[in-house]
């Protein structure tokens, strides 16, 4: 699905990612964990093509293509999706218009016809139901006046509606209470199948109780310093990040 090789990236001349190697195959869920400032969100944004980050070295091979130079909208049409840590409000643009535009751009890219109004509405209603959202929200402006939890839920609604190949979730669990966390996790599990993949970027283990990862990676100072299975997350929960940091220091 996606193969990241020796990825280096800068923000305003400061190197944040210092050589990341990661391979995610179809059917897998990978969790990227790490202390604050380790580069987790940077990695998520670089994968989605944020223009504030400059890739200085390395490759991102997504479905056989190096996407490093690809515009963010083209990456999305190729099947990459980023759920934002802080979703943006777009007053005056309804969820319906927003999602309809996005779906049709993706369909056009894949040589498919535009979605009919009826199919579109049915799809939104079906997905909203999974997330316990009132379908009247589709006529409301994107995220405008939504609470933090509603915004996160709306990200997952977009994920389910656009149905990408790879979903990157950037701290989707932050600011969620336990009920909202369950609903959001339910949505992600509903999305997941053997043909797609998920990268979860998270600081805490608690999300992984609901979305069980196949692999857990620890990012520290812009590098993946440890990988393991879901038990690694439990160990981090119990012992914190300090022991890994210490291990790193000893290695140096």
């Amino acid at each position, binding site marked *: 699905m996606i193969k990241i090789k020796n990825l280096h990236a800068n923000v305003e001349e400061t190197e944040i990612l210092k050589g990341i190697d990661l391979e995610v195959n179809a059917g897998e869920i990978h969790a990227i964990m790490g202390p604050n400032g380790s580069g987790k969100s940077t990695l998520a944004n670089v994968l*989605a093509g944020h*223009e504030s980050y400059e890739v200085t070295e390395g490759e991102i091979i997504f479905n056989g293509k190096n996407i490093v130079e690809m515009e963010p*909208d083209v*990456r*999305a*049409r190729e099947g990459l999706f980023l759920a934002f840590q802080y979703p943006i409000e777009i007053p005056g643009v309804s969820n319906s218009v927003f999602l309809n535009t996005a779906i049709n751009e*993706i369909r056009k890219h894949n040589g498919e016809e535009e979605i009919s109004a009826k199919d579109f509405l049915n799809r939104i209603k079906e997905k909203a139901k999974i997330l316990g959202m009132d379908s009247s929200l589709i006529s409301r402006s994107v995220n405008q006046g939504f609470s933090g939890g509603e915004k996160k839920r709306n990200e997952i609604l977009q994920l389910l509606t656009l149905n990408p190949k790879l979903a990157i979730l950037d701290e989707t669990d932050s600011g969620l209470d336990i009920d909202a966390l369950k609903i959001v996790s339910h949505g992600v599990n509903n999305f997941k199948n053997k043909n797609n993949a998920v990268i979860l970027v998270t600081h805490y283990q608690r999300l992984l109780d609901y979305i069980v990862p196949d692999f857990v990676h620890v990012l520290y100072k812009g590098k993946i310093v440890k990988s393991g299975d879901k038990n690694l997350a439990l160990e981090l929960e119990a012992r914190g990040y300090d022991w890994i940091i210490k291990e790193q220091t000893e290695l140096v």
Partner: protein
Amino acid sequence: MSKENNIKSWYLDNFQKFDKVTNDNLKNLRNDAAVKFGNSEFPTKKIEDWKYTNISPILNNEFVPSPLFKYEVNNLSIEKYKIPNLDVHLVVFVNGIFNKGLSELNDIESGVIIDSFLSQSKINHELISKYSSKLEISLNSFTLLNHTFTYDGFFIYIPKNKIVEKPIHILNIAIDNNDKPLIQPRNLIIAEENTKANIVSEFVGNDGSEYFTNVITDISVSENSNISFIKLQNESNLAYHIDKTDIHQSGSSVFNHFSLSFGSKIVRNDINTKLDGENIECHLYGLYLGNKDQHIDHHTFINHAKPNCMSNELYKGILDDKAKGVFSGKILVDQIAQKTNAFQSNKSVLLSNDASIDAKPQLEIYADDVKCSHGATVGKLDEQAYFYIRSRGVSAEAARSMLIRAFINDVVSEIKIEQLQEKVNHTIFEHLHREEF
């Protein structure tokens, strides 16, 4: 002779011709104005209120006062200008002259008058004199030029306790048969006590037409009235547009003014309101969209003359290419106007490095128990939001359109007529040559 004197002589010569062929109630008024016009001055950049706007391109042209023409308007189609799916009282003017044939004035509430200024000047001369602005010596040449040729415009009178249910749509169409018309509407709205109306004043002209629109509008809003006046300026790209609107509000009235500015090469709008009673609400909204080498200047003046009133002003603009915007918002709070609430905000987005805006908020407060705030910001479209929208597969072009819509939304959403909101949104994207979604 200076350029300014040349052009003044040109208009005064035209006035002589005009005066010979007209004989009506307004003759004395016009003659008085003509004398004052002769002694007046066109504003220059040396005057503080005009320092950001160079009007000399207007003075380089010899425009011909439109009442001196007869226009053939048989084949004029106005369908494209109508507001889709909205039932209105339609009042059509062609080059400032009322066109009864194209207008649609049916089922007007009894006592309400929606008519042309010219015809009412014959019937309701006294009323017109009472409410028309006085010709003070300090008026500039543009204002006096309008008075010199006072002829037609719209006239709206709403008697006590009347609600005008349907919006009134005034359509000002400009046509130019290579004769460079000077179009000078003289408009008057009188809303008596406890009345309500929505008035849309639209200016249209085909791109490539060269003309000069110089408007005066007087609006009187009496006690407990609720009046909305929405100006939609979509003139030709080669037109010049100068507008002076004076509003007088009495106690417990609500007035909403919208200046939505799209067309014209040089635009100057002066909007002056006097809050002359207690418990008044006054909202001034503005939207200016400029591209190419457009110059769009808004000067607003809110005079808080009495206590316990609120004014709220929100002006937003999007400027592309080499367009230039000017916003000057003055708020005066009189010594006796305690408990005044006055808010002003001006925000502009520059889409190119060559676009610019001069913003000048001015607060003059002589009372001590007031709440006043003002702010002006200039920036670019929000980059994080741009990334967010594109990260869903939406093209760069459509993402920018969405951000433009998001930016202007808090002005457009205040237009409480949904069909008009749609028309405005459509006009925005058409004007910015942006993809509509």
